[in-house]
């Protein structure tokens, strides 16, 4: 029996049962993005540790390098967690069940609405009235929403207003002033995670880089699921 594989896939052997898994080229590219992102904090960490090995330093220098190292280790942990999540999404099926969309997304938005004091960014949330029931994996959707909201904030500048529209079956994040900031490899990894999590539920994900606009939708309950996940428009 033959099994057709998508183009540009690698088959990795699984040692336990001898079966193979197909790794799409897109996933490989996303993992490579993750490795690229990790190279930045690793470089700083390596430099900071090297500097701490010097004989002549003051206590304040030590403190600075220790703090710097801690920050970079935190970044690395976040990146690893995102890589892990990306692989989890790729390796396991979404467990979708009917959900009230506004209930699902409402809990996630609670921590984000209003002024974000540390960044000087304001998030304005508007709800369209008619919430639909969608077929969603609640945990995976919440993870994707949080990642999307974090990315919208990270790409915003002081004084920007992020407009968050809760659609009947999705969410749109828009920052009209969010011009001029390109995605770095860490942000591309987060975007990949959002896309993968939403697309694994047969939803759609659309991203426009400049000005920033990220919109996702999930399939409505009872609808025929035929849509493919849209690619990001970058």
């Amino acid at each position, binding site marked *: 029996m033959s099994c057709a594989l998508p183009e540009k896939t690698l088959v990795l052997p699984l040692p336990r049962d001898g079966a193979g898994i197909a790794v799409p080229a897109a996933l490989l590219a996303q993992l490579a993005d993750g490795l690229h992102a990790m190279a930045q904090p690793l470089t700083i960490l390596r430099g900071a540790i*090297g500097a701490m090995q010097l004989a002549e330093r003051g206590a304040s220098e030590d403190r600075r390098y220790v703090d710097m190292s801690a920050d970079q280790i935190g970044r690395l942990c976040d990146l690893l967690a995102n890589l892990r999540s990306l692989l989890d999404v790729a390796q396991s099926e979404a467990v979708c069940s009917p959900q009230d969309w506004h209930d699902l997304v409402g809990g996630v938005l609670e921590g984000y609405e209003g002024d974000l004091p540390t960044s000087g960014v304001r998030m304005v949330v508007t709800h369209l009235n008619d919430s639909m029931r969608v077929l969603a994996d609640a945990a995976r959707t919440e993870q994707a929403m949080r990642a999307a909201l974090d990315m919208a904030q990270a790409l915003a500048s002081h004084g920007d207003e992020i407009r968050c529209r809760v659609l009947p079956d999705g969410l749109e994040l828009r920052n009209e002033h969010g011009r001029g900031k390109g995605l*770095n490899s860490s942000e591309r990894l987060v975007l990949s995670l959002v896309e993968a999590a939403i697309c694994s539920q047969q939803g759609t994900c659309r991203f426009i880089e400049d000005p920033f606009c990220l919109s996702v939708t999930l399939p409505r309950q009872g609808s025929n699921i035929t849509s493919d996940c849209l690619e990001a428009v970058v």
Partner: protein
Amino acid sequence: MSGMDDPQLYASEPVTVDSSSPNQTNSLASVSVINRSAARRILIVEDDVSLAGFLGGELEAQGFAVEQIHDGEEALRILEAKRRFDLLLLDLNLPKLDGISLIQRLRPTQPRLPVLVLTARSRVEDKVKALESGADDCLTKPFSLIELLARVQALLRRNSGVVPNCSTVGDLIMYRDQRRVERNGRRIELTPREFAILDVMMRNVGRPVSRATLLEEVWNIAPSESATNIVDVYMKYVRDKVDLPGEPRLTHTVRGVGYELRVA
């Protein structure tokens, strides 16, 4: 153990830091390979703001004048605006205009600017492509800071044949490659900034050097009244170390202009 971790690389020729000098960060002050920096200007083009900041801080601590840009288009704009830099540190994965395209567009107008590519792409093909596009050297992240500094120095050395290693005025001698200054056999310990000032002065022996020139050469900032004060402060540090009581004065104030180094 990596090269960065090798204490031997940090061991020789420590720079004595003058604690009375303000605003000195001396993160790697005892790194010997950095001591020829003398306010060379480096443009860092790196989209990771943290990494750019870290590299900028460490290079500035060695006396380099550093600017940071986080996207390719802005970097090209600055470089095409005829801003003079002695070296470009360039990431390849940049928003708006990638590093390879930036080099290709830069080379027709700035064929001699040394370009050191910093990349997280470890494939040989990527490095070859960068070098073929006009980069002078390539370093893969995560790299050792000491290796970066050594490569920066090597590229700058390759491009600075006109500045002699050794300069003298009277009994004052400067050995640039050792970052060593002596007067009448007496070793003069200078911070990187003070060394940079004296370096500019020694390249202009017998000619007045304006405060504006020193600001531009040493600090890479535009002249302003408040900024020129810092020149005077640092010049006093240099003068106090070079001209001890009883020695013939070599550093002179040229009223309304700046300073001059000459034998009385």
